[in-house]
């Protein structure tokens, strides 16, 4: 569905994208993770045809972004709503811009209102909504026309639990219906819940790509023992179970708690940051 090859984008002396390559299949959710300034948002802007790359090329279903603008749903990182316009009016506008009309528009609005739980505040102006409600409204305007490609740039940043869960549910549902999803986030557990494949971005390029299990395989986890006298032992290990057995067999004092932590995406992130440091 989405194929980006060797994208390069410079802002003055800053090389925001540096041979950035990524492919996303229909029905796949790809979590783009990386530090601020890694190039995630620039990539989203290029795919949504807001910015032209200086090099490389990107295709969506074999066509350039300019040819398929209406088939891409974009929810930018920052809130971009009209303060004096209600949620319903936002949905009508973006639905109409996507070509929906009549009963199809009404149905699309009803569907997305239910999916993202907007009904309690649908007639309120964006200016008086809470941050989470604004996030959901913004996502709704991107999702209303059931685009084949979804670009969600930190859609849950600063969001409450309800907003986060509603968002994740809808993203999973849309991917299940065949949409390709690019989901940038700093909340790595969300990607586990979404069962997303993960692309780690650093300095404008994808430096690692795979499933959660593939990426954390071989990374060290931690085993921590706390003794009755409140002393602690923490061991970093790639084989937590074996290490735990070994530690327990050698313990010479009463143990109060045992904590085994498997490697997480945070560990991956830290290890990649170290191994790819310039």
């Amino acid at each position, binding site marked *: 569905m989405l194929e980006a090859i060797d994208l390069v984008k410079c802002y003055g002396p800053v090389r925001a994208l540096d041979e950035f390559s990524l492919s996303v299949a229909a029905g796949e959710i790809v979590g783009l993770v990386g530090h601020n300034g890694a190039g995630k948002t620039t990539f989203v802007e290029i795919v949504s045809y807001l910015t032209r790359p200086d090099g490389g090329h990107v295709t969506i279903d074999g066509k350039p972004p300019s040819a398929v603008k209406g088939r891409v749903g974009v929810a930018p990182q920052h809130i*971009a709503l009209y303060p004096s316009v209600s949620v319903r009016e936002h949905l009508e506008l973006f639905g109409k811009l996507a070509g929906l009309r009549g009963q199809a528009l009404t149905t699309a609005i009803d569907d997305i209102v239910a999916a993202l739980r907007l009904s309690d505040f649908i007639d309120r102006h964006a200016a008086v909504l809470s941050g989470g409600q604004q996030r959901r409204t913004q996502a709704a305007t991107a999702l209303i026309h059931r685009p084949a490609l979804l670009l969600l740039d930190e859609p849950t940043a600063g969001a409450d639990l309800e907003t986060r869960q509603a968002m994740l549910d809808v993203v999973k549902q849309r991917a299940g219906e065949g949409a390709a999803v690019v989901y940038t986030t700093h909340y790595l557990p969300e990607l586990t819940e979404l069962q997303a494949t993960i692309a780690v971005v650093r300095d404008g390029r994808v430096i690692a790509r795979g499933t959660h299990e593939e990426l954390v395989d071989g990374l060290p986890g931690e085993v921590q023992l706390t003794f009755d006298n409140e002393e602690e032992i923490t061991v970093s290990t790639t084989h937590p179970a074996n290490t735990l057995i070994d530690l327990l067999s050698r313990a010479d004092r009463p143990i109060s708690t045992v904590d085994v932590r498997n490697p997480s995406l945070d560990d991956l992130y830290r290890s990649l940051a170290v191994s790819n440091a310039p």
Partner: protein
Amino acid sequence: MLLDTPHTQHRVEPPPPAGLLDNLRGAAYRVGALAKHNTLIRLRDPGQMISYVAMPMVLMLVLKPLYVRAVEGGATQVATGLMVMFSVFAISIAGNAILVERTWRTWDRLRASRAPATELLLGKTIPIFVVMVVQQSILLVYGCLVIGLPIPRAPQYVVFAIAIWAFALLSIGAALATIVRSHGELSVISDVGALTLSSLGGALVPLSIMPEWAQVAAHISPGYWALTMMQAAVRGDAAGTLAPAGVLLAIGLVAGTFAVRRLTRGWGRGHLL
């Protein structure tokens, strides 16, 4: 670690190719949606429009005796002069309407939609154009009914002049909105610029009693051409209306082309407010 991702392909089919007529219908539908949306925004924040209609009405009323005594055709001068001056102030309505898209970061959301830049601009500017036409029309009708402006012999010339002037103002306002860095900067430029250019153009003080250098310099002011066109249109003078209309049309086209180029490309990250 770059891996293939085995997933079931689910191709979401694009809509079938549309004919020219379908494309035009689609474009009209999107422009209509945008125009309705922008009209809504304007109606919910009518302060500027109200003040640019009410202020010249009051000023026309209190300044009329002065103008009538000072110059021949004083009623025409005060009505058309203040109408031109306050319509120049309305540049800030156009500028603000476009600038808020940048403040609210909504312009890029529209650019990412199916609507091409021309449709976005039409949908954005049609309501502002209507606002400017309505403002000028109200002031001219008020001028005729209350101030003593002669009833135009050929109303079609007046309608034409209003449309041309509104187009020029809209283009200048849009161009300004694409280069200023803040609402404050827009406000300063449009207010000081409007007062200077419309005064220089003879909107406040009749050109005939201004210094000689000012009479020459007046030609660089769009306000001069607008005032000349409006007064000719009210007189029913076709030739006198068309020549300045040509100048204003040219100014509008240049400013409009500049604005379109800037808005089509977006503001980019370096110019955020």
